[in-house]
């Protein structure tokens, strides 16, 4: 390889996105350094990077959010670039600033662009000036209840309360009538305060039956800003995306072109560099409204990679190294259809309640057009300290019908035991005729899945039968044949450390 771009990249993240960055670096022949908290001593990213350095205890603000510590490690271990992944420090302008002072390249946008776009209120004003369409609502954060009440009346109910510093559904509330406005504002402020340390919230018109459609953009240091088409992320539970796809069934090539041009306009107006995502709300009449621009690689970036053939993390690294966007990337088209399902540690049969514990079994689906971006393995402890995403399952097929079939099969073949996931829930979404027909609004789960009941009693006999067979592995035959005398074999526990410990005693 002619140019390795960087000497060594520090990956300031954990889980599947840390693995994703490590894999991109391996592809380019760039060594990686992982940082980890004491909770992640045995995590997959810790053992996969070329080097790994412990940076602190489990609470994020003492490890993964500790900018000074991370910069120190980068300097000490001779890293000339830092990739922040998503979450944690990815949208914190203090990191690119600290990098700048330390002479380290931050793989992402400038602190200024981050600051502008990180503030939903300021960025709306900026984009309105640039001529990008916006949802009607408050022009700035509300100070008094009266201001909110007035704005709500003007926009017309339902309205949406959103955190100024927010994202990912945190600090967000739909309000359908004036009576519940006050308590919703309070709840949103409480969540916003806890999640972002800032309880500023604002209000806007709530568009019924919208789709969430976003455009991937790339901008280099040579004045080139391009988009890489859309992703539709309408399937959300509690405002959290769980299934994403591209192309969107809703867009004509004419509207696609218009929205893509608007996305490029947003990035240019913000002076944006590197990879980012411009989010739009898309209504049933073909109208679209700028929501926000995310200043990082997104969880759902793989579907774009599958249909365009571009490796977005590689492009991030190339752009950060000062390279122009290559001709290969500039000449892309959309090919086939791609869907992503997020595999969260949550109970799809019990209102997506977070689940924690040890992964006892982990088998990933394989085959043509199936991709798994995972941050866990058998034996991984899934705690409550961090984001509950375990892995992402992505498929690609020539058309949407085939992609749906492939995803359903792949979800069935993806076996994770020990913690709950919502694989069965997502299979039921994909098998729904409304999903199949492409009527994917952000209200999909509320509308079509609310009455969903899974009767596990139906399969309890089957479950008991297989459990009996599995018990054979659990009992130690050498002890004797009788049922009473069966006892667990000391070697049958999952978890390598226990073995050494037992012998050691």
């Amino acid at each position, binding site marked *: 390889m002619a140019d390795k771009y960087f000497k060594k990249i520090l990956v300031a993240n954990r889980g599947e996105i840390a693995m994703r960055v490590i894999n991109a670096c391996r592809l380019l022949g760039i060594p990686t350094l992982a940082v980890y908290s004491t909770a992640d001593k045995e995590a997959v990213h810790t053992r996969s990077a070329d080097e790994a350095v412990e940076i602190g205890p489990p609470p994020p603000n003492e490890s993964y959010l500790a900018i000074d510590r991370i910069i120190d490690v980068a300097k000490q271990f001779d890293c000339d670039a830092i990739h922040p992944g998503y979450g944690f420090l990815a949208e914190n302008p203090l990191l690119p600033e600290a990098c700048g002072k330390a002479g380290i390249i931050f793989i992402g946008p400038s602190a200024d662009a981050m600051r502008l776009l990180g503030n939903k209120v300021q960025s709306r004003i900026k984009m309105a000036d640039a001529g990008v369409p916006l949802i009607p609502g408050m022009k700035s954060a509300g100070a008094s209840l009266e201001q909110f009440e007035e704005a709500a009346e003007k926009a017309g109910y339902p309205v949406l309360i959103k955190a100024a510093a927010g994202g990912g559904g*945190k600090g967000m509330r739909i309000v359908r009538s004036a009576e519940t406005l006050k308590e919703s504002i309070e*709840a949103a402020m*409480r*969540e916003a305060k*806890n*999640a972002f340390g800032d309880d500023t919230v604002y209000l806007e018109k709530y568009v019924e039956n919208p789709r969430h459609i976003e455009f991937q953009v790339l901008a280099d240091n040579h004045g080139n800003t391009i988009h890489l088409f859309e992703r539709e992320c309408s399937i959300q539970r*509690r405002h959290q995306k769980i299934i994403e796809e591209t192309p969107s069934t809703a867009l004509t090539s004419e509207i696609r072109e218009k929205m893509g041009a608007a996305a490029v306009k947003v990035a240019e107006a913000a002076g944006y560099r590197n990879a980012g995502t411009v989010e739009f709300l898309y209504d049933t009449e073909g109208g679209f409204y700028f929501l926000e621009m995310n200043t990082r690689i997104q969880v759902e970036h793989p579907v774009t990679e599958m249909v365009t053939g571009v490796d977005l993390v590689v492009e991030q690294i190339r752009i950060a190294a000062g390279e122009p966007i290559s001709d290969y990337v500039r000449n892309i088209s959309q090919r086939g259809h791609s869907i992503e399902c997020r595999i969260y540690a949550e*109970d799809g*049969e019990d209102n997506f*309640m*977070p689940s*924690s514990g*040890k992964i*006892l*079994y982990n*088998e990933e689906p394989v085959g043509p057009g199936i991709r798994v971006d995972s941050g866990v393995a058998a034996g991984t402890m899934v705690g*409550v300290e961090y984001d*509950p995403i375990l892995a992402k399952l992505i498929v690609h097929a020539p058309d949407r019908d085939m992609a749906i079939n492939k995803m359903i099969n792949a*979800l*069935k073949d*993806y*076996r*994770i*035991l*020990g913690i*709950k*996931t919502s*694989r*069965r829930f*997502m*299979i039921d979404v994909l098998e729904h005729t409304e999903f199949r027909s492409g009527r994917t609004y952000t209200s999909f789960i509320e509308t079509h899945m609310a009455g969903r009941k*899974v009767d*596990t*009693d139906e*399969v*309890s*006999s*089957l*479950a*008991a*039968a*297989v*459990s*009996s*067979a*599995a*018990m*054979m*592995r*659990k009992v130690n035959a050498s002890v004797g044949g009788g*049922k*009473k005398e069966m006892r667990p074999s000391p070697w*049958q*526990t*999952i978890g390598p450390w226990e073995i050494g410990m037992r012998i050691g005693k």
Partner: protein
Amino acid sequence: MKNEFIHNDELIETEMEITSDGVDVAVGDSTYHIVELTEGKYRVEANGMKKTVCCVVNADKTFLDIDGLLIELGIPSEDGNSSGGAGAVAGEKDKIFAPMPGKIVKLLVKEGETVAEKTPMVIVEAMKMEHQVNAAAAGVVKKINFADGDQVDTETPIIELEIEEKEE
């Protein structure tokens, strides 16, 4: 070889026989022919149905994956008790637990209050999200063990209920 499992408070009895290539397990009227494919992965055939099911045993539970659906069965211990199974806590409808360790954001009921099934009882914050916990059965609030802002684990009930007895 006989085994017992607990699912949703019900005991399921199985009887297993070794065959030339695996085992036959009888549960109620059905017999399942089961072959181990690799450790933790089983092919099951019964009444023309053919499925691959994953199952591991850990502590006093079995964990299963049936076409993406996750089921846990409790394994009764020698003295007849079981701590396991998704249904094991269902017997404790008179206790409201936090779904996971977190912080109590707001208690929505007071001691002495009468509540219907599914009445919102408490909001707990964990993993940066608010989770509302509802009553699993109708009853009267007997005792509240925590206050707003308290840290809670999943072992101590937040609220204890006096359950209304129904005809059953």
